């Protein structure tokens, strides 16, 4: 533990603290989902996720060889450990359960998935209909005359609990199909790797990935808005470097055409701009709706393309035909008719499950998560207005238990007519935790703790994190490799390109990206798609070859290397680099 941060560390709940007994176990740093130190509140994203993940693997679908994922936190970093089942009798018993449960899901996939979408939309509607937070001086007369009997301050507790409950529930929906989906994909993936030992991960992903998946939709909306801007004749307002606010203000003065475009924007925003610029695990990864600079950064380039006569429509039929051809061509290369039949069965399964694997993120990590964090932010604003915090986002320095206490403190103060205690209590704690998080970010994080096992065969870990003994060895040795001019990551999208690096550490800097730059960032995800048209290549710290970033990069035909671990810290802004997306190598040239 970093000295001087003990009190900040103690804030996290006891059940995620390391104890002496944990030294005997193997833990690895989940840098894929939690690349930065977690603030006290943001840890709820790990809590709710692992609670639901484990329910699915341990008790709902009963995966024969694994239970759930244990997790711990130190220096704000989330470490996880598998919980394998090794006793053959127990595996056999769980296999019987698994086949009654998971096989039922596979057999009824389309129906259950359609039902899932309805459940998710209902959950989203619930979150949207949570009341606005307010504490009037006197209870509204209508409540009194109707004999409601429950005062308004109670709504704070009720709304908070429903917000938190909905978030935990969302994660159950998230994992309802996920392991089964990945499992079917991995089955096909493992077969391809055996049949074609040198096939790239991205080629397998291309055979399975959907053409009309939800992840492409936000970018498609930006393209649509570019077309509409030209059609309505207001495209001259979209100039590089102009803020969204300035553009929207200018459009207000352009009469029916300008208002027409703003209406189109409103249509796109709900729901498609509910995607956040991260992966949904940090409160500060805001959505396009909260900060329009990302989609607006893409508009000038798309508008120029429309003016140049390009259609900007994704050629859906052509892409589908290419995918069919790819599948057919690899099929022909197989060694026997037996293998071809097995291939057909496995890719059939992968295609059945993949719409869920690709689609769930939009509903869960983006749309719902966004509503959740914004509701918590509303509590932050209310508490800040009552002197608890200097800023609304200080609220994320409290754990969800502490936040409940602060809310009850405020409710009590409103009841009693006394000042709340929070304004004396929280500000110094918030300051201390902010300082600790900043300190933790400066320290390097060991990729693994405890004894390294010989084999990593826990399917949950292999599937969700792509961790094998080989990749672990690579990580463990990466830190000793600082002198090298090369960074290695996952080969996400093939092609070789050289150019100046634009190192972007936050979304606010997105306006700095110029045509021909190689984007270097912590995470690329579908929300970055609008600037993919400008850049020559992409490099990220986090992500796997199945990640959405990789899929979008392939769609744009951009060389990309993801999951390098250290790109944003080792590459300097403006430095010339070479990206070899086929090999997963980034070379520092200057």
């Amino acid at each position, binding site marked *: 533990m970093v000295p001087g941060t003990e009190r900040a560390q103690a804030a996290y709940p006891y059940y995620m603290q390391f104890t002496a007994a944990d030294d005997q176990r193997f833990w690895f740093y989940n840098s894929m989902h939690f690349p930065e130190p977690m603030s006290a509140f943001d840890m709820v994203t790990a809590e709710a996720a692992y609670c639901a993940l484990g329910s699915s693997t341990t008790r709902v679908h009963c995966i024969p060889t694994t239970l759930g994922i244990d997790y711990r936190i130190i220096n704000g970093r989330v470490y996880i450990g598998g919980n394998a089942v090794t006793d053959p009798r127990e595996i056999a018993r769980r296999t019987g359960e698994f086949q009654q449960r998971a096989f039922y899901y596979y057999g009824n996939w389309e129906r259950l998935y359609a039902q899932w979408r309805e459940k998710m939309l209902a959950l989203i509607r619930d979150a949207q209909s949570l009341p606005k937070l307010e504490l009037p001086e006197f209870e509204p007369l209508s409540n009194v005359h109707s004999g409601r009997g429950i005062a308004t301050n109670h709504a704070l507790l009720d709304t908070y609990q429903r917000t938190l409950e909905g978030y935990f529930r969302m994660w159950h929906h998230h994992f309802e199909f996920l392991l089964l989906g990945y499992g079917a994909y991995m089955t096909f993936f493992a077969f391809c790797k055996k049949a074609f*030992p*040198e096939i790239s991960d991205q080629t397998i992903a291309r055979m399975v990935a959907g053409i009309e998946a939800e992840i492409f939709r936000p970018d498609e909306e930006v393209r649509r808005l570019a077309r509409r801007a030209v059609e309505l004749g207001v495209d001259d307002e979209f100039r590089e470097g102009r803020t969204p606010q300035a553009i929207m203000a200018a459009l207000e003065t352009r009469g029916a055409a300008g208002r027409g475009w703003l209406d189109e924007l409103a249509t796109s925003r709900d729901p498609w701009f509910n995607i956040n610029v991260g992966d949904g695990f940090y409160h500060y990864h805001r959505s396009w709706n909260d900060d329009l600079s990302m989609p607006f950064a893409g508009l000038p380039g798309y508008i120029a393309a429309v003016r140049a006569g390009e259609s900007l429509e994704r050629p859906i039929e052509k892409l589908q035909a290419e995918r069919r051809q790819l599948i057919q061509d*690899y099929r022909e290369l197989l060694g026997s008719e037996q293998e071809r039949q*097995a291939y057909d*069965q496995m890719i059939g399964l992968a295609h059945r499950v993949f719409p869920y694997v690709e689609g769930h993120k939009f509903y869960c990590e983006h749309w719902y998560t966004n509503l959740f964090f914004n509701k918590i932010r509303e509590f932050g604003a209310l508490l800040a207005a009552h002197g608890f915090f200097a800023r609304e986002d200080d609220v994320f320095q409290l754990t969800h238990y502490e936040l409940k206490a602060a809310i009850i403190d405020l409710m009590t103060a409103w009841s009693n007519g006394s000042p709340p205690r929070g304004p004396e209590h929280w500000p110094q704690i918030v300051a201390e935790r902010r300082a600790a998080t900043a300190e933790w970010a400066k320290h390097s994080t060991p990729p693994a703790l405890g004894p390294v096992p010989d084999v990593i065969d826990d399917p949950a870990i292999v599937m969700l994190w792509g961790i094998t003994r080989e990749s672990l060895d690579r990580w463990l040795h990466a830190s000793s490799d600082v002198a090298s001019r090369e960074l290695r990551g996952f080969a996400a999208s093939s092609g070789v390109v050289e150019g100046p690096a634009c190192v972007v550490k936050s979304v606010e800097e997105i306006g700095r990206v110029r045509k021909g730059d190689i984007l270097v960032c912590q995470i690329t995800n579908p929300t970055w798609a609008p600037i993919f048209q400008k850049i020559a290549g992409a490099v990220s710290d986090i992500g796997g070859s199945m990640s959405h970033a990789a899929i979008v990069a392939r769609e744009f035909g951009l060389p990309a290397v993801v999951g390098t671990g250290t790109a944003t810290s080792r590459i300097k802004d403006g430095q010339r680099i070479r990206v070899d997306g*086929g090999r997963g190598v980034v070379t520092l040239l200057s």
Partner: protein
Amino acid sequence: MGVGAHIAWFDEIGLGDRAQVGGKGGSLGELKRAGIAVPPGYVVKTRAFERLLESLEREAPVRAAVAAVSPGDLAGVTACSRALRRRVEEAELPGEVLEELSIAQERLVRGGTAQPVAVRSSATTEDAAEASFAGLQDTYLWIKDPAEIIRRVRSCWASLYSVESISYRRKLGFPEERVAMAVVVQSMVDARTAGVMFTRSPTTGDRSVVTIEGAWGLGSAVVGGEVTPDRWVLGKITGEIAVREISDKLIEHVPAARGGVEAVAVAEERRRMPCLSDAELQELRTLARRIERHYGCAQDIEWAVDRGSGAILLLQSRPETVWSARDTAPIAKHEEDPLTHLMSIFGTRRCP
């Protein structure tokens, strides 16, 4: 043109004619048949060898002499080899054969290719055994003089009677009457770059990649292992270039002024330069796929890039043997319930 009794042009023959034109000749004809660019040339058929042998047999036994030696008797084999090689190398070619050869050679030159030729043996036995039958020495490159061509045709034939070839046949008890050899005469390509490619990975047996190896100059430097070639691995279907290894190419083979080839040092600035462009790599990949489809099995292919035109020409294609021999059980098979496949990932083999 008419098919001569002793000579056949590449466009007249295919794999089915191997008994008369040997493995190399048949394969070159087959490539032309598949519409692949091959440097022009002809084959001196086995019949020509038979005619020469007939005239030699009239003077003194040839086949019987070989059949009489015992493989363990090195002195006997050596003596037999020395005598027979000299007889083959010094024999006059039968008049008809000579006449057909000179007409063919004139036509090759008239066809616009004043290029020197390569003369190579084309054995009628399986390729794997070819090396033992004929040795590796009987490829003669960059030959300009017609008289030299005839001399080298005889050298190819004579190699059938090398000590190694005789010993090998005697050990196997291979019947001498079935021993015959055709000879390929083919315009040389003045290669800027040349090399080999494999439609199945030599290292993993993967059928979905094409491995290409090449170096500056004539392909003999690569085939003979005198230079470390550049190496690329391409997705056969996707064209993705997964591996690029650019080596330090110290020497290259070039035509020597007085015929034949010589090794020369590569200029400093070209040594670490890739010897193929990405466009050429993709063209080779396309060719590899076409050839493999045409033959219906994995191939090892020799190719060259013409210095003047930049055109890619194929010099040779033969079936891959190492991995094909290893293929055993299918890695997965059709399952009554497709969900059974999932159990390989979910971690148990106890499922029904």
